[in-house]
C-alpha cells in the first residue's frame, strides 16, 4: 500500500460503506452472481482495513475467498480497480473470478477459495517477515464455518508456537455456512474459547461497529506474544432487510425485484 491510512471519521466511513454496498450489489446483480450475504457481512471490515488501518508493508489475505466481491469493491473505492473491470466480474476472460486468482493484483497476494488455505499462507508470509526482520503486519480474514477445516487448526498451533505477533486473524462470525447455520452443522457457537485454548489472545467485537473494530485492532500487543484473533460478530446479508440472517443469501443472486428493493433500502438509509 503506497498511501498512508486515512484518519477515521464515522460519518465519512458510513458514506463510504453505503457507496461500496451499492456498487457491490450492482456488480452481483448485473453479473447474476450470489455469495452476497457473506460479502455484506465483512464489507466494512475490508473497507476499514484498507482505508484506515493497513500501512505500506502490511498484507491482507482473504481466506474466505467467496467474499472476493467485497475485496474487488474495496479496491474500487481505493481507485485500484475501475468500473470497466468490475463489469467483467465472473465473465469470460475476466481476472475478477468468483474466488481470488493469483498474481494479477498486488493487493491479492494469493489465490484462495478452497477454505482453510489462506491462514497458513498468511502465516508463511508473517514468518518470512519475522525471519528477515522486515516490517509489516499480516491480516487474514476467515469465515466462521471455515474453522471446520483441520488445516486451520494446524495453522493456529504453528502460528502460536512461532509467536507470530504481527499476525491478526479476523473471523467473520456471521453464523451461517453453505447448508445451514454454523450451530446446526457443527456446534460452532463457542468458537472463541476453542480458539483461545490454543494460545492466542481472542477478543470479540461488533463487526458492524467500525470504530470499535478500529480501536481493538489498533491496540498494541499486550499480554501475549503470539497472533491475535478478532471475533467479528456480524450479520450475514448485513444492511439489506430481506437478506439478513438468511441461508439463501449465501448462494442466491438478486432478482430484479430484490435488487430494486435493496437499492431503495440503501437510498432511504442515505437520506436519513
Amino acid at each position, binding site marked *: 500500500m503506497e498511501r498512508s491510512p486515512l484518519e477515521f471519521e464515522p460519518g465519512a466511513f458510513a458514506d463510504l460503506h453505503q457507496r461500496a454496498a451499492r456498487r457491490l450489489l450492482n456488480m452481483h446483480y448485473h453479473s447474476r452472481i450470489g455469495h452476497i450475504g457473506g460479502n455484506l457481512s465483512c464489507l466494512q471490515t475490508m473497507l476499514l482495513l484498507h482505508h484506515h488501518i493497513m500501512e505500506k508493508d502490511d498484507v491482507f489475505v482473504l481466506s474466505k475467498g467467496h467474499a472476493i466481491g467485497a475485496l474487488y469493491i474495496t479496491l474500487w473505492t481505493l481507485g485500484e480497480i475501475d468500473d470497466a473491470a468490475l463489469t467483467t466480474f465472473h465473465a469470460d476472460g475476466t481476472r475478477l473470478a468468483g474466488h481470488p486468482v*493469483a498474481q494479477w493484483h498486488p493487493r491479492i497476494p494469493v*489465490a484462495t*477459495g478452497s477454505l482453510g488455505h489462506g491462514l*497458513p*499462507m498468511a502465516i508463511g508470509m508473517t514468518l518470512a517477515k519475522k525471519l*528477515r526482520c522486515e516490517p509489516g503486519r499480516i491480516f487474514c480474514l476467515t469465515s466462521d464455518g471455515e474453522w471446520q477445516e483441520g488445516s486451520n487448526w494446524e*495453522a493456529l*498451533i*504453528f502460528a502460536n508456537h512461532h509467536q507470530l505477533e504481527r499476525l491478526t486473524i479476523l473471523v467473520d462470525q456471521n453464523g451461517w455456512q453453505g447448508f445451514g447455520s454454523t450451530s446446526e452443522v457443527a456446534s460452532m457457537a463457542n468458537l472463541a474459547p476453542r480458539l483461545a485454548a490454543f494460545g492466542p489472545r481472542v477478543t470479540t467485537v461488533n463487526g458492524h461497529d467500525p470504530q470499535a473494530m478500529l480501536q481493538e485492532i489498533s491496540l498494541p500487543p499486550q499480554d501475549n506474544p503470539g497472533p491475535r484473533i478478532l471475533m467479528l460478530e456480524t450479520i450475514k446479508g448485513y444492511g439489506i432487510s430481506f437478506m439478513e440472517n438468511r441461508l439463501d443469501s449465501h448462494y442466491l443472486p438478486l432478482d430484479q425485484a430484490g435488487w430494486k428493493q435493496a437499492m431503495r433500502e440503501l437510498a432511504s438509509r442515505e437520506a436519513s
Partner: protein
Amino acid sequence: MRNAVCQALMTLFAHQHFVFLTGDLGFQALEPLRALMGERFINAGVAEQNMISVAAGLAQQGMMTWVYSIAPFCYARPFEQIRNDVCLHRFPVKLVGNGGGYGYGAMGPSHHAIEDYGALLTLPGMQAWIPMFATDVLPAVLQMAAVNTPAYLRLGRCECPNHYTPPPFAPWRHLLSGGGLPVVVTGPLVGSLLATCLTMDVAVRPDIWGVTLLPVTAPTIPQALLAQIGQQRRLCVVEEHVLHGGVGHMLAHTLLTSGIAVDTFHHAYARGYPSATYGSQQFHRRESGLDTPALLQLMGISP
C-alpha cells in the same frame, strides 16, 4: 540418500533467503542441517497441510523454500495445498520426499509412494527429479535450486554396484552398453539391474538408459536412444511407480507423437499389493516383477 540430501542442502546455506521445513522427520539424517541453519530450519510438526501452505506463503515473500517429509506425507496428504497454494501460483517451493516407491518396505502401504510423480506431474509447472545414485543428489538439488518452478525430489536408497562409476548426472544418461533391447529405467532400482548386467556378455545384455528428470519430453530424449528404438522397434521401461502417469506412459506418448513406433513395448511397473501381503522393498518388487530375474525374463534374456 538422506545423508546425501542433507549434505547437498547444506551447500545452499549461503543463500540469504533459504528456509527449510520438515514435517517432524529427519532423525539421524538432518541434524547437521538443523545445526547449521538455526531458526531457518523449521520443524513444522505433524501437520503437512499447514507446512505446504506455510511454504507457499514463505515463497510468496521471496524465500527459497524447501520442504521435507516421507514421500507419501509430502505429496499425498497435502495434495490440494500443493495444487492450489504452490502450483497455481507457480511458487518455486521444492518438495523432498524420502522413500520413493516401496522404499519403506514392511512399514506398510501408508508409507509407500508408488504414484507420487505421476500425481504431481499433473500439476502446472511441476518437475520431478529422481536420483538413481547417491552421487546424483547434489547435482539434482543444485538444479532444483536453480529453477524458478515447483519441483519434487524423490529419494530412495542408493543401490549402485561396487566398481560401477555412473556417468555424470544428466536428465538422460546411457548407463550400460549392450547388444540387447533398449531399456529405460527410473530410480535407484537400476542399481540391482546393473549389478547383474555388468557380469553378462555385452552382446546379449540390455542397453540401459536412465532418466532422472520428469516429465519426459521429446526434445530431452537423446538422439542415440531414439535411433536405437527406431532401429530395433522395441523398448522396455522399468519404474517403481504405478502404470498410470508413469514414465512408461509418458515415453510411449512422446514416441507416438514423435512418429516413432515400436512393435514390442515392455513395461515393468509397481502393481500395488497383488497378494495383499506385505514385506520388504525387495518383496514388493518381486510381487510387481521389478526384481532383476523377472526383468531379465521380461526382456527375453537368460541370466
